[in-house]
Protein backbone atom coordinates (compact mmCIF):
# COMPACT_ATOMS: atom_id res chain seq x y z
CA UNK A 1 0.00 0.00 0.00
CA UNK A 2 1.97 2.91 -1.26
CA UNK A 3 1.36 6.01 0.71
CA UNK A 4 -0.46 8.62 -1.24
CA UNK A 5 1.85 11.53 -1.75
CA UNK A 6 -0.16 14.58 -2.57
CA UNK A 7 -0.42 18.16 -1.51
CA UNK A 8 -3.99 17.96 -0.37
CA UNK A 9 -3.21 17.07 3.23
CA UNK A 10 -4.55 19.63 5.61
CA UNK A 11 -1.21 21.24 6.12
CA UNK A 12 0.35 22.07 2.79
CA UNK A 13 4.07 21.94 3.21
CA UNK A 14 6.83 22.45 0.75
CA UNK A 15 8.79 19.94 2.77
CA UNK A 16 6.16 17.26 2.21
CA UNK A 17 6.29 17.96 -1.49
CA UNK A 18 10.05 17.63 -1.45
CA UNK A 19 9.95 14.38 0.46
CA UNK A 20 7.34 12.91 -1.85
CA UNK A 21 9.34 13.93 -4.87
CA UNK A 22 12.22 11.64 -3.96
CA UNK A 23 13.68 9.18 -6.39
CA UNK A 24 11.85 5.93 -6.94
CA UNK A 25 14.86 4.13 -8.34
CA UNK A 26 15.70 0.69 -6.96
CA UNK A 27 19.10 -0.34 -5.69
CA UNK A 28 20.17 -1.34 -9.17
CA UNK A 29 19.12 1.93 -10.71
CA UNK A 30 21.43 4.80 -11.45
CA UNK A 31 22.15 6.97 -8.44
CA UNK A 32 19.28 9.39 -8.08
CA UNK A 33 20.03 13.03 -8.24
CA UNK A 34 20.70 13.81 -4.64
CA UNK A 35 21.14 17.52 -4.49
CA UNK A 36 21.96 17.57 -0.81
CA UNK A 37 21.11 20.52 1.32
CA UNK A 38 23.02 23.67 1.99
CA UNK A 39 26.48 22.54 2.95
CA UNK A 40 27.87 24.40 5.93
CA UNK A 41 31.21 22.67 5.49
CA UNK A 42 32.02 24.11 2.10
CA UNK A 43 30.77 24.85 -1.37
CA UNK A 44 32.02 21.74 -3.16
CA UNK A 45 29.44 19.32 -4.50
CA UNK A 46 29.03 15.84 -3.08
CA UNK A 47 30.24 12.77 -4.97
CA UNK A 48 27.31 10.89 -6.46
CA UNK A 49 25.79 8.47 -4.03
CA UNK A 50 27.72 9.77 -1.04
CA UNK A 51 24.86 11.72 0.40
CA UNK A 52 21.23 11.64 1.38
CA UNK A 53 19.08 14.75 1.60
CA UNK A 54 17.41 15.27 4.96
CA UNK A 55 14.34 17.33 5.80
CA UNK A 56 13.04 18.56 9.11
CA UNK A 57 9.27 18.82 8.84
CA UNK A 58 6.06 17.95 10.68
CA UNK A 59 6.23 14.24 9.90
CA UNK A 60 4.57 11.61 7.70
CA UNK A 61 1.11 12.10 6.25
CA UNK A 62 -0.35 9.29 8.34
CA UNK A 63 0.75 11.10 11.47
CA UNK A 64 -0.56 14.47 10.33
CA UNK A 65 -3.89 13.00 9.25
CA UNK A 66 -4.17 11.53 12.76
CA UNK A 67 -3.95 15.07 14.07
CA UNK A 68 -0.35 14.95 15.27
CA UNK A 69 2.92 16.52 14.26
CA UNK A 70 6.51 16.27 15.39
CA UNK A 71 9.08 18.98 15.99
CA UNK A 72 12.81 18.81 15.33
CA UNK A 73 12.72 15.38 13.67
CA UNK A 74 14.97 14.79 10.64
CA UNK A 75 13.71 12.61 7.81
CA UNK A 76 15.19 10.98 4.72
CA UNK A 77 13.67 9.04 1.82
CA UNK A 78 14.94 5.54 1.06
CA UNK A 79 14.02 2.75 -1.33
CA UNK A 80 13.34 -0.79 -0.13
CA UNK A 81 13.11 -3.84 -2.41
CA UNK A 82 12.53 -7.54 -2.10
CA UNK A 83 15.99 -9.17 -2.03
CA UNK A 84 17.36 -9.52 -5.55
CA UNK A 85 14.57 -7.55 -7.18
CA UNK A 86 14.82 -4.19 -8.90
CA UNK A 87 11.08 -3.94 -9.49
CA UNK A 88 9.44 -5.12 -6.26
CA UNK A 89 10.37 -1.87 -4.59
CA UNK A 90 8.88 0.89 -2.50
CA UNK A 91 10.13 4.40 -1.92
CA UNK A 92 9.56 5.33 1.71
CA UNK A 93 9.52 8.93 2.81
CA UNK A 94 9.74 10.24 6.37
CA UNK A 95 12.33 7.76 7.55
CA UNK A 96 13.57 9.36 10.78
CA UNK A 97 17.34 9.72 11.21
CA UNK A 98 18.29 8.44 14.65
CA UNK A 99 21.87 8.60 15.88
CA UNK A 100 20.66 7.24 19.23
CA UNK A 101 19.89 3.72 18.01
CA UNK A 102 21.11 1.17 15.49
CA UNK A 103 19.20 -0.58 12.71
CA UNK A 104 16.52 0.13 10.13
CA UNK A 105 12.96 -0.38 11.39
CA UNK A 106 10.12 -0.09 8.89
CA UNK A 107 6.45 0.12 9.78
CA UNK A 108 4.64 -2.76 8.13
CA UNK A 109 1.81 -0.47 7.08
CA UNK A 110 4.07 1.43 4.64
CA UNK A 111 5.37 -1.72 2.90
CA UNK A 112 3.33 -2.87 -0.10
CA UNK A 113 2.56 -6.57 -0.37
CA UNK A 114 4.91 -6.75 -3.35
CA UNK A 115 7.93 -6.08 -1.15
CA UNK A 116 8.60 -9.38 0.61
CA UNK A 117 11.42 -9.49 3.18
CA UNK A 118 13.21 -12.84 3.54
CA UNK A 119 12.61 -13.91 7.15
CA UNK A 120 15.50 -14.32 9.58
CA UNK A 121 15.26 -17.86 10.93
CA UNK A 122 16.51 -19.15 14.27
CA UNK A 123 18.87 -22.02 13.42
CA UNK A 124 18.03 -23.81 16.66
CA UNK A 125 14.26 -24.06 16.30
CA UNK A 126 13.76 -23.29 12.64
CA UNK A 127 11.24 -20.64 13.63
CA UNK A 128 11.15 -17.09 12.32
CA UNK A 129 12.75 -14.42 14.52
CA UNK A 130 10.92 -11.36 15.79
CA UNK A 131 12.23 -8.46 17.81
CA UNK A 132 10.89 -6.61 20.80
CA UNK A 133 12.29 -3.13 20.31
CA UNK A 134 12.21 -1.32 23.64
CA UNK A 135 12.43 2.46 23.82
CA UNK A 136 12.11 4.87 26.72
CA UNK A 137 8.58 5.72 25.58
CA UNK A 138 7.22 2.34 24.47
CA UNK A 139 7.87 -0.86 22.58
CA UNK A 140 7.64 -2.27 19.08
CA UNK A 141 7.10 -5.85 17.96
CA UNK A 142 7.81 -7.21 14.53
CA UNK A 143 9.63 -9.75 12.42
CA UNK A 144 13.25 -9.56 11.36
CA UNK A 145 13.73 -9.85 7.62
CA UNK A 146 16.23 -9.12 4.89
CA UNK A 147 15.57 -6.53 2.22
CA UNK A 148 17.63 -4.67 -0.36
CA UNK A 149 17.87 -0.98 0.42
CA UNK A 150 19.03 2.03 -1.54
CA UNK A 151 20.47 4.88 0.49
CA UNK A 152 20.88 7.83 -1.85
CA UNK A 153 21.69 5.41 -4.67
CA UNK A 154 24.09 3.31 -2.60
CA UNK A 155 22.92 -0.32 -2.59
CA UNK A 156 22.65 -2.49 0.49
CA UNK A 157 22.01 -6.15 -0.25
CA UNK A 158 20.06 -8.30 2.22
CA UNK A 159 20.09 -5.80 5.08
CA UNK A 160 18.43 -7.20 8.21
CA UNK A 161 15.61 -4.87 9.29
CA UNK A 162 12.76 -5.02 11.78
CA UNK A 163 9.29 -4.91 10.20
CA UNK A 164 7.33 -3.21 12.97
CA UNK A 165 3.76 -4.38 13.36
CA UNK A 166 4.18 -7.27 10.93
CA UNK A 167 1.07 -9.45 11.36
CA UNK A 168 3.21 -12.50 10.57
CA UNK A 169 5.07 -12.04 13.84
CA UNK A 170 1.87 -12.70 15.76
CA UNK A 171 1.17 -11.53 19.28
CA UNK A 172 4.03 -10.05 21.26
CA UNK A 173 5.04 -12.11 24.29
CA UNK A 174 4.01 -10.54 27.57
CA UNK A 175 7.66 -9.99 28.52
CA UNK A 176 7.63 -7.44 25.69
CA UNK A 177 4.14 -5.99 25.93
CA UNK A 178 3.47 -5.98 29.65
CA UNK A 179 6.02 -3.69 31.26
CA UNK A 180 7.49 -1.48 28.54
CA UNK A 181 4.83 1.20 28.15
CA UNK A 182 2.57 1.72 25.14
CA UNK A 183 2.74 -0.26 21.90
CA UNK A 184 4.19 1.77 19.01
CA UNK A 185 3.43 -0.43 16.04
CA UNK A 186 1.69 2.08 13.76
CA UNK A 187 2.95 5.20 11.99
CA UNK A 188 0.61 7.31 14.13
CA UNK A 189 1.97 5.88 17.39
CA UNK A 190 5.59 5.55 16.23
CA UNK A 191 5.84 9.03 14.69
CA UNK A 192 7.61 8.03 11.46
CA UNK A 193 7.26 5.63 8.52
CA UNK A 194 10.57 4.05 9.49
CA UNK A 195 13.54 4.66 11.77
CA UNK A 196 17.07 4.79 10.35
CA UNK A 197 19.24 3.89 13.35
CA UNK A 198 22.71 5.03 12.38
CA UNK A 199 24.27 5.44 15.81
CA UNK A 200 27.74 4.42 16.81
CA UNK A 201 27.24 0.68 16.92
CA UNK A 202 27.20 -2.00 14.23
CA UNK A 203 24.12 -3.86 15.54
CA UNK A 204 21.25 -2.90 17.78
CA UNK A 205 22.34 -5.23 20.58
CA UNK A 206 25.61 -6.71 19.36
CA UNK A 207 27.73 -9.49 20.79
CA UNK A 208 25.94 -9.36 24.15
CA UNK A 209 22.76 -10.79 22.60
CA UNK A 210 24.73 -13.22 20.44
CA UNK A 211 26.24 -14.81 23.55
CA UNK A 212 23.30 -14.88 25.94
CA UNK A 213 19.65 -14.17 26.56
CA UNK A 214 19.07 -11.24 28.92
CA UNK A 215 17.02 -12.24 31.98
CA UNK A 216 14.63 -9.37 31.30
CA UNK A 217 14.31 -7.05 28.33
CA UNK A 218 15.39 -9.72 25.82
CA UNK A 219 15.07 -8.31 22.29
CA UNK A 220 15.03 -11.44 20.14
CA UNK A 221 12.46 -14.23 20.05
CA UNK A 222 11.92 -17.32 17.92
CA UNK A 223 8.19 -17.72 17.43
CA UNK A 224 5.92 -20.35 15.99
CA UNK A 225 2.76 -19.21 14.23
CA UNK A 226 0.70 -16.82 16.32
CA UNK A 227 3.53 -15.88 18.67
CA UNK A 228 2.56 -14.96 22.20
CA UNK A 229 3.84 -16.53 25.40
CA UNK A 230 3.05 -20.01 24.12
CA UNK A 231 4.70 -19.63 20.73
CA UNK A 232 7.71 -17.41 21.43
CA UNK A 233 11.02 -18.21 23.13
CA UNK A 234 13.69 -15.62 23.86
CA UNK A 235 16.88 -16.54 22.01
CA UNK A 236 20.46 -15.50 21.51
CA UNK A 237 20.99 -14.25 17.96
CA UNK A 238 24.19 -14.02 15.90
CA UNK A 239 25.24 -10.45 15.19
CA UNK A 240 24.92 -11.09 11.45
CA UNK A 241 21.20 -11.78 11.98
CA UNK A 242 20.54 -8.69 14.10
CA UNK A 243 19.36 -5.39 12.60
CA UNK A 244 22.58 -3.79 11.43
CA UNK A 245 23.73 -0.22 11.00
CA UNK A 246 22.90 0.48 7.33
CA UNK A 247 25.70 2.98 6.76
CA UNK A 248 28.29 0.65 8.31
CA UNK A 249 27.29 -2.00 5.77
CA UNK A 250 27.92 0.14 2.69
CA UNK A 251 30.78 -1.08 0.49
CA UNK A 252 32.67 2.20 0.95
CA UNK A 253 32.46 5.31 3.12
CA UNK A 254 31.35 2.97 5.89
CA UNK A 255 33.51 4.08 8.81
CA UNK A 256 30.97 6.58 10.07
CA UNK A 257 28.38 9.20 9.27
CA UNK A 258 28.44 12.94 8.89
CA UNK A 259 25.27 14.88 9.70
CA UNK A 260 25.05 18.46 8.41
CA UNK A 261 22.48 21.18 8.86
CA UNK A 262 22.72 24.87 8.02
CA UNK A 263 22.50 27.44 10.79
CA UNK A 264 18.99 28.49 11.72
CA UNK A 265 19.08 31.34 14.20
CA UNK A 266 16.66 31.04 17.11
CA UNK A 267 13.31 31.70 15.39
CA UNK A 268 10.93 28.84 14.49
CA UNK A 269 10.83 27.85 10.82
CA UNK A 270 8.53 25.66 8.75
CA UNK A 271 11.23 23.27 7.57
CA UNK A 272 14.96 22.81 7.15
CA UNK A 273 17.04 20.95 4.58
CA UNK A 274 20.25 19.18 5.56
CA UNK A 275 22.51 16.39 4.39
CA UNK A 276 23.67 12.98 5.57
CA UNK A 277 27.11 12.14 4.23
CA UNK A 278 28.34 8.56 4.40
CA UNK A 279 31.78 8.19 5.94
CA UNK A 280 34.02 10.44 8.01
CA UNK A 281 37.18 11.74 6.37
CA UNK A 282 36.75 9.45 3.37
CA UNK A 283 35.77 12.16 0.88
CA UNK A 284 36.37 15.86 0.48
CA UNK A 285 32.86 16.61 1.68
CA UNK A 286 33.07 14.64 4.95
CA UNK A 287 36.50 15.89 5.99
CA UNK A 288 36.25 16.66 9.71
CA UNK A 289 38.98 19.29 9.41
CA UNK A 290 39.60 20.78 12.84
CA UNK A 291 36.68 19.02 14.54
CA UNK A 292 37.46 17.70 18.03
CA UNK A 293 36.55 14.03 18.53
CA UNK A 294 35.17 12.60 21.77
CA UNK A 295 35.44 8.92 22.65
CA UNK A 296 32.34 7.23 24.11
CA UNK A 297 32.07 5.42 27.42
CA UNK A 298 30.72 1.90 27.77
CA UNK A 299 27.05 2.95 27.64
CA UNK A 300 27.59 5.06 24.54
CA UNK A 301 27.84 8.01 26.89
CA UNK A 302 29.63 11.36 26.83
CA UNK A 303 30.23 13.88 29.58
CA UNK A 304 28.57 17.28 29.68
CA UNK A 305 29.76 19.90 32.16
CA UNK A 306 26.79 22.16 32.87
CA UNK A 307 26.37 24.64 35.72
CA UNK A 308 29.30 23.13 37.59
CA UNK A 309 28.05 19.55 37.34
CA UNK A 310 29.48 16.69 35.32
CA UNK A 311 26.63 14.88 33.57
CA UNK A 312 28.49 11.72 32.65
CA UNK A 313 25.61 9.90 30.93
CA UNK A 314 25.10 12.44 28.13
CA UNK A 315 24.22 11.75 24.52
CA UNK A 316 24.16 13.48 21.13
CA UNK A 317 20.94 12.12 19.67
CA UNK A 318 19.31 13.27 16.44
CA UNK A 319 16.21 11.33 17.51
CA UNK A 320 15.49 13.69 20.41
CA UNK A 321 13.47 16.82 19.76
CA UNK A 322 15.33 19.32 21.92
CA UNK A 323 17.90 19.99 24.60
CA UNK A 324 16.95 17.87 27.61
CA UNK A 325 18.66 18.45 30.96
CA UNK A 326 17.89 19.15 34.58
CA UNK A 327 17.97 22.74 35.78
CA UNK A 328 15.56 23.58 38.55
CA UNK A 329 16.26 27.30 38.08
CA UNK A 330 14.51 27.28 34.67
CA UNK A 331 10.71 27.47 34.73
CA UNK A 332 8.99 24.36 33.40
CA UNK A 333 5.85 24.81 31.29
CA UNK A 334 2.57 24.28 33.16
CA UNK A 335 1.30 20.72 32.82
CA UNK A 336 -1.94 21.98 31.29
CA UNK A 337 -0.19 23.80 28.45
CA UNK A 338 0.89 22.56 25.04
CA UNK A 339 4.48 22.98 26.19
CA UNK A 340 4.01 20.39 28.93
CA UNK A 341 7.31 18.51 29.27
CA UNK A 342 9.40 21.47 28.08
CA UNK A 343 10.91 24.60 29.59
CA UNK A 344 9.01 27.89 29.58
CA UNK A 345 11.34 30.66 30.79
CA UNK A 346 9.76 34.15 30.61
CA UNK A 347 12.51 35.25 28.24
CA UNK A 348 15.00 33.14 26.27
CA UNK A 349 18.02 32.02 28.25
CA UNK A 350 21.52 31.86 26.77
CA UNK A 351 23.37 28.90 28.23
CA UNK A 352 26.72 27.18 27.89
CA UNK A 353 28.03 23.69 28.43
CA UNK A 354 31.18 21.71 27.68
CA UNK A 355 31.05 18.28 26.02
CA UNK A 356 33.89 15.79 26.43
CA UNK A 357 34.53 12.07 26.09
CA UNK A 358 36.90 9.65 27.73
CA UNK A 359 39.76 11.46 25.95
CA UNK A 360 39.05 14.45 28.20
CA UNK A 361 39.07 17.18 25.55
CA UNK A 362 36.32 19.69 26.24
CA UNK A 363 34.32 21.39 23.49
CA UNK A 364 32.23 24.39 24.47
CA UNK A 365 28.66 24.62 23.22
CA UNK A 366 26.37 27.66 23.36
CA UNK A 367 22.63 27.16 23.15
CA UNK A 368 19.40 29.00 23.84
CA UNK A 369 16.49 27.80 25.97
CA UNK A 370 13.24 29.21 24.59
CA UNK A 371 9.70 29.27 25.94
CA UNK A 372 8.03 26.17 24.48
CA UNK A 373 4.49 27.51 24.89
CA UNK A 374 5.44 30.60 22.90
CA UNK A 375 7.34 28.54 20.30
CA UNK A 376 4.37 26.25 19.68
CA UNK A 377 1.94 29.18 19.64
CA UNK A 378 3.97 31.43 17.38
CA UNK A 379 3.61 29.16 14.37
CA UNK A 380 1.67 25.89 14.70
CA UNK A 381 3.10 24.73 11.37
CA UNK A 382 6.73 25.25 12.35
CA UNK A 383 8.68 21.99 12.54
CA UNK A 384 12.02 23.63 13.23
CA UNK A 385 12.23 24.95 16.80
CA UNK A 386 15.92 25.67 17.46
CA UNK A 387 15.46 26.67 21.12
CA UNK A 388 13.20 23.83 22.26
CA UNK A 389 14.41 22.43 25.59
CA UNK A 390 12.97 20.39 28.40
CA UNK A 391 13.62 19.11 31.91
CA UNK A 392 15.02 15.70 32.65
CA UNK A 393 15.62 13.74 35.78
CA UNK A 394 13.98 13.69 39.17
CA UNK A 395 16.74 12.00 41.10
CA UNK A 396 20.44 12.47 40.78
CA UNK A 397 20.84 9.22 38.86
CA UNK A 398 18.72 10.27 35.89
CA UNK A 399 19.80 13.89 36.01
CA UNK A 400 23.25 12.70 35.00
CA UNK A 401 22.15 13.00 31.37
CA UNK A 402 22.29 15.97 29.02
CA UNK A 403 20.48 14.90 25.86
CA UNK A 404 21.69 16.99 22.93
CA UNK A 405 18.80 16.56 20.51
CA UNK A 406 18.36 17.71 16.92
CA UNK A 407 18.70 21.47 17.61
CA UNK A 408 22.34 20.75 18.53
CA UNK A 409 22.88 19.66 14.92
CA UNK A 410 21.63 22.94 13.41
CA UNK A 411 24.55 24.93 12.01
CA UNK A 412 26.99 22.07 12.53
CA UNK A 413 28.69 19.17 10.86
CA UNK A 414 28.62 16.30 13.37
CA UNK A 415 30.87 13.31 12.69
CA UNK A 416 29.98 9.88 14.07
CA UNK A 417 32.68 7.20 13.97
CA UNK A 418 31.38 3.63 14.28
CA UNK A 419 32.64 1.02 16.72
CA UNK A 420 35.55 -1.00 15.36
CA UNK A 421 36.23 1.57 12.62
CA UNK A 422 38.61 4.52 12.51
CA UNK A 423 38.50 8.02 11.05
CA UNK A 424 42.02 9.31 10.66
CA UNK A 425 43.53 8.45 14.03
CA UNK A 426 40.18 8.43 15.87
CA UNK A 427 38.87 4.99 16.86
CA UNK A 428 35.11 4.52 17.13
CA UNK A 429 32.80 4.75 18.83
CA UNK A 430 33.41 8.47 18.81
CA UNK A 431 31.74 11.74 17.85
CA UNK A 432 33.31 14.93 16.56
CA UNK A 433 32.05 18.44 15.86
Amino acid at each position, binding site marked *: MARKCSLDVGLVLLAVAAACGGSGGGPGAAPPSSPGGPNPGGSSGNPPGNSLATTVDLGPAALISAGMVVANAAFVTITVCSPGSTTACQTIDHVQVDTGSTGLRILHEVLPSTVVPVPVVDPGSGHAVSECGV*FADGWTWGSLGMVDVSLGGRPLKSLVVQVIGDPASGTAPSACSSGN*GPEEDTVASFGANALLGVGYYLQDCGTYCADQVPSSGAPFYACSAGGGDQGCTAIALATSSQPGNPVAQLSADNNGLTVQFPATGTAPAASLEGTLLFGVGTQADNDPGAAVFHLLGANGNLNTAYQGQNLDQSVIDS*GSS*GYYFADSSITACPASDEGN*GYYCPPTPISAQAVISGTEGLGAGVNFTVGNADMLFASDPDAAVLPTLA*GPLGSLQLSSRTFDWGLPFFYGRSVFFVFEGRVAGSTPGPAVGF
Partner: protein
Amino acid sequence: MLVSSRTGESFDVGRVTTSIVLAALVLGVPAHASLLESRTSVTDDHRLLHGTALKMTSTTAYDVYETTTPEGGHVRQFVNHDGRVFAIAWSGRFSPDLRQLLASHYDQYVLAARVHRGGHHLLSISTPELKLSIVQLPRGFAGSAHLPALLPPGVKPDQLD
Protein backbone atom coordinates in the same frame (compact mmCIF):
# COMPACT_ATOMS: atom_id res chain seq x y z
CA MET B 1 11.49 -8.57 58.29
CA LEU B 2 14.37 -6.56 56.81
CA VAL B 3 15.22 -4.52 59.83
CA SER B 4 17.31 -1.45 59.37
CA SER B 5 20.25 -0.98 61.64
CA ARG B 6 20.32 2.76 60.85
CA THR B 7 24.04 2.80 61.34
CA GLY B 8 24.85 4.07 57.89
CA GLU B 9 26.62 0.81 57.12
CA SER B 10 25.46 -1.54 54.44
CA PHE B 11 25.20 -5.28 54.56
CA ASP B 12 24.44 -7.99 52.09
CA VAL B 13 21.10 -9.68 52.62
CA GLY B 14 21.12 -11.55 49.32
CA ARG B 15 21.60 -14.91 50.99
CA VAL B 16 18.47 -14.62 53.06
CA THR B 17 16.29 -13.32 50.25
CA THR B 18 14.89 -16.68 49.25
CA SER B 19 13.53 -17.42 52.70
CA ILE B 20 12.13 -13.91 52.97
CA VAL B 21 10.29 -14.28 49.68
CA LEU B 22 8.95 -17.67 50.69
CA ALA B 23 7.77 -16.22 53.96
CA ALA B 24 6.08 -13.38 52.10
CA LEU B 25 4.31 -15.81 49.82
CA VAL B 26 3.16 -17.96 52.73
CA LEU B 27 1.88 -14.89 54.51
CA GLY B 28 -0.03 -13.84 51.44
CA VAL B 29 1.81 -10.59 50.78
CA PRO B 30 0.79 -9.23 47.37
CA ALA B 31 3.30 -10.30 44.75
CA HIS B 32 3.28 -7.02 42.88
CA ALA B 33 4.45 -3.88 44.47
CA SER B 34 7.00 -1.12 44.31
CA LEU B 35 6.56 2.63 44.11
CA LEU B 36 4.23 3.68 46.92
CA GLU B 37 4.04 0.08 48.03
CA SER B 38 5.32 -1.44 51.24
CA ARG B 39 8.81 -2.53 52.12
CA THR B 40 7.99 -6.16 51.36
CA SER B 41 7.61 -5.25 47.70
CA VAL B 42 11.35 -4.81 47.51
CA THR B 43 11.95 -8.53 47.85
CA ASP B 44 9.26 -9.31 45.30
CA ASP B 45 10.99 -7.01 42.86
CA HIS B 46 14.31 -8.60 43.68
CA ARG B 47 12.93 -12.01 42.77
CA LEU B 48 11.11 -10.87 39.63
CA LEU B 49 14.19 -8.99 38.43
CA HIS B 50 16.20 -12.20 38.92
CA GLY B 51 18.39 -10.21 41.28
CA THR B 52 21.75 -11.70 42.14
CA ALA B 53 22.38 -9.58 45.24
CA LEU B 54 20.26 -7.41 47.48
CA LYS B 55 22.06 -4.82 49.53
CA MET B 56 20.62 -2.44 52.07
CA THR B 57 22.05 0.86 53.16
CA SER B 58 20.50 3.05 55.85
CA THR B 59 20.53 6.74 56.48
CA THR B 60 18.82 8.56 59.29
CA ALA B 61 15.90 9.41 57.01
CA TYR B 62 15.43 6.35 54.80
CA ASP B 63 16.69 2.92 53.77
CA VAL B 64 18.01 2.08 50.31
CA TYR B 65 17.66 -1.41 48.88
CA GLU B 66 19.80 -2.11 45.86
CA THR B 67 19.20 -5.11 43.61
CA THR B 68 21.82 -6.15 41.09
CA THR B 69 20.48 -7.87 37.97
CA PRO B 70 22.26 -10.71 36.14
CA GLU B 71 23.18 -8.19 33.40
CA GLY B 72 24.93 -5.96 35.92
CA GLY B 73 22.09 -3.46 36.13
CA HIS B 74 21.01 -1.84 39.37
CA VAL B 75 17.61 -1.03 40.86
CA ARG B 76 17.56 1.13 43.97
CA GLN B 77 14.43 1.50 46.07
CA PHE B 78 14.18 4.17 48.74
CA VAL B 79 11.98 3.31 51.73
CA ASN B 80 10.82 5.93 54.23
CA HIS B 81 10.22 5.40 57.94
CA ASP B 82 6.59 4.57 57.27
CA GLY B 83 7.81 1.58 55.29
CA ARG B 84 6.74 3.01 51.93
CA VAL B 85 8.82 3.03 48.75
CA PHE B 86 8.98 6.75 47.90
CA ALA B 87 11.58 6.65 45.14
CA ILE B 88 13.09 4.23 42.65
CA ALA B 89 16.14 4.57 40.45
CA TRP B 90 17.41 2.09 37.89
CA SER B 91 20.20 1.73 35.36
CA GLY B 92 21.48 -1.05 33.17
CA ARG B 93 21.91 -2.40 29.69
CA PHE B 94 18.23 -3.38 29.40
CA SER B 95 15.07 -1.75 30.69
CA PRO B 96 13.51 -3.42 33.75
CA ASP B 97 9.81 -4.33 33.92
CA LEU B 98 8.30 -0.90 34.53
CA ARG B 99 4.89 -2.28 35.41
CA GLN B 100 6.55 -4.08 38.30
CA LEU B 101 8.62 -1.11 39.44
CA LEU B 102 6.02 1.64 39.02
CA ALA B 103 3.12 -0.48 40.25
CA SER B 104 -0.01 1.68 40.55
CA HIS B 105 1.76 4.54 38.73
CA TYR B 106 2.48 2.45 35.64
CA ASP B 107 -0.68 3.57 33.87
CA GLN B 108 0.33 7.20 34.35
CA TYR B 109 3.61 6.42 32.59
CA VAL B 110 1.76 4.73 29.73
CA LEU B 111 -0.55 7.70 29.25
CA ALA B 112 2.34 10.17 29.25
CA ALA B 113 4.36 8.02 26.84
CA ARG B 114 1.40 7.79 24.49
CA VAL B 115 1.14 11.55 23.98
CA HIS B 116 4.90 12.13 24.15
CA ARG B 117 6.41 13.41 20.90
CA GLY B 118 9.93 14.29 22.03
CA GLY B 119 11.67 11.24 20.62
CA HIS B 120 11.97 7.59 21.56
CA HIS B 121 14.99 7.90 23.83
CA LEU B 122 13.61 9.90 26.71
CA LEU B 123 10.46 10.41 28.70
CA SER B 124 9.72 12.82 31.50
CA ILE B 125 6.68 13.21 33.75
CA SER B 126 6.33 16.09 36.16
CA THR B 127 3.08 16.27 38.07
CA PRO B 128 2.59 17.27 41.70
CA GLU B 129 2.03 13.59 42.48
CA LEU B 130 4.74 11.91 40.40
CA LYS B 131 8.12 12.86 39.00
CA LEU B 132 9.53 10.36 36.51
CA SER B 133 12.33 10.38 34.00
CA ILE B 134 13.71 7.72 31.66
CA VAL B 135 16.73 8.10 29.41
CA GLN B 136 17.83 5.59 26.79
CA LEU B 137 21.51 5.62 25.98
CA PRO B 138 22.94 3.86 22.90
CA ARG B 139 23.93 0.98 25.19
CA GLY B 140 21.69 1.25 28.23
CA PHE B 141 18.80 2.72 30.18
CA ALA B 142 18.64 4.97 33.22
CA GLY B 143 15.48 6.03 34.97
CA SER B 144 14.05 7.29 38.19
CA ALA B 145 10.74 8.13 39.78
CA HIS B 146 9.68 9.59 43.08
CA LEU B 147 6.56 10.63 44.93
CA PRO B 148 7.07 14.13 46.38
CA ALA B 149 4.35 13.63 49.00
CA LEU B 150 6.20 10.69 50.54
CA LEU B 151 9.65 12.27 50.69
CA PRO B 152 11.03 12.14 54.25
CA PRO B 153 11.23 15.59 55.87
CA GLY B 154 14.34 17.45 54.82
CA VAL B 155 15.21 15.07 51.99
CA LYS B 156 15.61 16.62 48.56
CA PRO B 157 15.25 14.39 45.49
CA ASP B 158 18.52 15.55 43.97
CA GLN B 159 20.28 14.12 47.03
CA LEU B 160 19.09 10.64 46.14
CA ASP B 161 21.44 8.71 43.91
